[in-house]
């Protein structure tokens, strides 16, 4: 176990390092943020002053060295645009993104698992075939486009739900959340569903495949021969075998939802960190891009770690070992 944790930490640090070098070097080559930030009328003297204040006059490896030293102290630099610590900017916006992603994940599971189980148990029924056709559609819908269509229908035409923003939030342990107010929920509904749509299809397909496969296995036949009622066979024997593999999927998909929130946040003007990174990329705001990256790498590593540990707890066949 300790060997496993050690190898995991090592891996995260190596990933962080490689990613930061890549992005640092890449951004340096691609262009000078000063060109984007300064007005064209700025004098060469002003220009030099800004360059010096950002430390952009030093050689790139030296810049990176300074960044690395600061990063180890937990400082990821100030945003070129906002002139605030980049880390603070991201941490401020993180709860909104996490709330959106987790809500979408729960939606995907709550809707996807029952439909998937049904489709797996009765693969030839009309309902199952409709579910599977829907899931192909759900797989193919471009998130950004269906988001627009949703705004068009539910916000513009029907006027049922707001089309943008986060609505009223309440503070829970100092973290602003939307789910506890009516207004917040109304604002959350469309973006969360938009984000969840693709994952619903995915969960349906994975669950169905798992159920179909498990139902064929010998121990299900043996459970029948033991005289167990079909309900117990499905709810105990089949479900446990089907849902355990889903844990891995849930972990990966939570990461993917956080990343894909970029699109949904752009459409629904959701004030999360996805919106921030898109804007940062447009103006080459290097500290923000780097901070975003560092944070996501750490976040994903934590998610993967939790998933692995959870998996080894639930599935007796899995033992953690540092490989």
């Amino acid at each position, binding site marked *: 176990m300790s060997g496993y944790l*050690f190898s995991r930490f090592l891996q995260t640090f190596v990933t962080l390092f490689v990613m930061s070098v890549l992005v640092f070097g890449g951004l340096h080559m691609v262009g000078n943020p000063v060109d984007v930030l300064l007005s064209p009328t700025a004098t060469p003297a002003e220009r030099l002053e800004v360059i010096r204040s950002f430390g952009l006059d030093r050689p790139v490896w030296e810049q990176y060295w300074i960044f690395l030293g600061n990063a180890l102290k937990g400082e990821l630099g100030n945003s070129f645009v906002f002139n605030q610590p980049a880390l603070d900017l991201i941490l401020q916006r993180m709860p909104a993104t996490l709330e959106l992603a987790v809500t979408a994940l729960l939606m995907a599971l709550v809707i996807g698992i029952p439909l998937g189980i049904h489709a797996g148990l009765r693969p030839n029924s009309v309902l199952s075939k409709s579910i599977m056709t829907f899931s192909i559609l759900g797989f193919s819908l471009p998130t950004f486009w269906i988001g627009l269509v949703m705004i068009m229908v539910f916000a513009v035409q029907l006027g049922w739900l707001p089309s943008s923003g986060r609505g009223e939030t309440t503070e829970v342990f100092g973290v602003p959340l939307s789910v506890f107010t009516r207004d917040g929920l109304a604002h959350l509904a469309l973006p969360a569903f938009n984000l969840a749509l693709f994952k619903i299809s995915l969960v349906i397909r994975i669950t169905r495949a798992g159920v179909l496969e498990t139902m064929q296995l*010998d121990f299900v036949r043996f459970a029948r*021969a033991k*005289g167990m*009622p079909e309900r*117990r066979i499905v709810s105990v024997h089949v479900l446990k075998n089907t849902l355990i593999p889903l844990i891995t999927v849930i972990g990966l998909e939570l990461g993917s939802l956080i990343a894909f929130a970029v699109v949904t946040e752009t459409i629904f003007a959701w004030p999360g960190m996805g919106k921030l990174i898109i804007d940062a990329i447009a103006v080459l705001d290097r500290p923000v891009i780097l901070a975003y990256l560092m944070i996501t790498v750490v976040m994903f590593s934590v998610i993967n770690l939790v998933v692995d540990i959870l998996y080894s707890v*639930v599935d007796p066949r899995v033992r953690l070992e540092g490989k």
Partner: protein
Amino acid sequence: MTNPILSVQDLTTSFRVDGQWRDVIRGVAFDIQPRETVAVVGESGSGKSVTAMSIMRLLSPANSRSTGRIEFEGRNLLDLPLPDMQAIRGNRIGMIFQEPMTSLNPVLKIGDQITEVLRHHRGMSDAGAMAEAARLLDRVRIPSARQRLGEYPMNFSGGMRQRVVIAIALACSPRLLIADEPTTALDVTIQAQILELIKTLQEEEGMSVLFITHDMGVVAEVSDRTVVMYRGDVVETATTEEIFRRARHPYSRALLSAVPQLGAMRGHDRPLRFPRVDMTTGEIAPPQSTADTVRRDAAPILEVANLVTRFPIRKGILRRVVGRIHAVEDISFELRQGETLSLVGESGCGKSTTGRSLIRLEEPTGGTVSLNGHDVRKAGHSELASIRRDVQMIFQDPFESLNPRIRIGAAIAEPMIAHGLVSRRDAPARVAGLLERVGLSGEMMQRFPHEFSGGQRQRICIARALALEPRLIIADESVSALDVSVKAQVINLMLDLQERYGLGYLFISHDMAVVERISHRVAVMYLGEIVEIGPRAAVFENPRHPYTRKLIAAVPVADPSRRQRRVATAEEIRSPYRSADYVPPKRLFREVGDGHFVQIVDDEAAA
């Protein structure tokens, strides 16, 4: 006669295949009396398992249906509503299946899988059920039963899992136990234990047993009466004695004549073909004896000295070697032209690894292998290629050993063309000739492997092996996956080819009876070592090593008059895994007869 426990009358089961209903078994009828064991025997496709599944109504109702009567405790099972049937399953009728490795749910604890039956059928409390479960595990002779209730199936070996399955099936003291090939997937010594266990429990419980099997040896060992099935029909029902003494139906006779009986080779000094049976009259023609093919005058074609093959087990970030599988440990033997040497042993004994190491399909760790005077281990790339031409291999699974995407004609021609033995243009004629030699027709060469049956595919593999005109064939469990009758035909073919081409065979098998039938010499392997090697007659008739004796004693003999009782033990097959610093002891041999060597058993004796 008393009332039968189970009475099957005119049972017909059909499957829906591509929208059409097709009968799989027709008009099956038999009775089982109290305390009686009835065996249903047949080859694959005979419908024996479908019969068992129909009785338990375990076939999917969507694409199967059964008609007729299945009377059990005064009720027709086919008419019962599903909840009533579920109340019978696992309660009044227990059932066990072939695959112990997959019959248990991998993510549920053993205890939970036993207690769910007790709670459901007998309404026991959780605590009561746990106590009863421990008692049940004890009854199937699982050591330290109580502690093992909290473990998962993966911590149990195949034999132990089958014991758990039996414990579950017997949890509610059923009147009838249906055992569907319960020992087929097990090693022979474990099979002996499980058969013994079933017999003992049957006596203790006073229940009846319906035993489904393909193995005539098992039939002779366990059953009072026998039902012979062939392609969905019952062809003969009689007491087991009668079936084995004077079977009336030609198919029963053919089946029996294809079964090698351990010990039946006494008095023959050369391999023996299987007899042929006329399917209309049921006449059995005595088997043709084989010619003496062993070339004792020339040097052996294969000489193996101190061969060692170990597989390292690595763990951790640094992939350190934490242990090794000692698959083959210091073995030596030789094989002459025209001779059949069998390597026999149970799973994990290293017999297959030995065969694979000889032509470096696995890289040996030490020792020398000399084929036709070439040192295999020192051979470079091209020398190895020419060595491999002289040695061909035939594998166990005929469905696996042909590439599904290559026409069989191309598959047979491929090695000949690659080695420049024949031009692309002349290849078809050669392939046709080879196919005819193994009893197939040359027109078949345009077909793909999936269009052939198992026996036909094994013939194709033999034809392909012959293509390079080898002098030695390594047959790795080559007939094990085949039905008895097909197995007999393929073995006859192999004996024909040995006579014709003077082939040497290294015959790797777990089947003692087949080995006795076709070998000139036999080597018994245990935990990677040869424990006894010698002429066939000497090893089988005068086994000296305790493990050889145990192995021979465990084989069920296809003769009800030689039925034997054994002591029900719970020994397990040991693993050849050793820690990284393990140094194997040097083994010494004693010559107990002409060419008959036995490993000297030390204190921590193997068997």
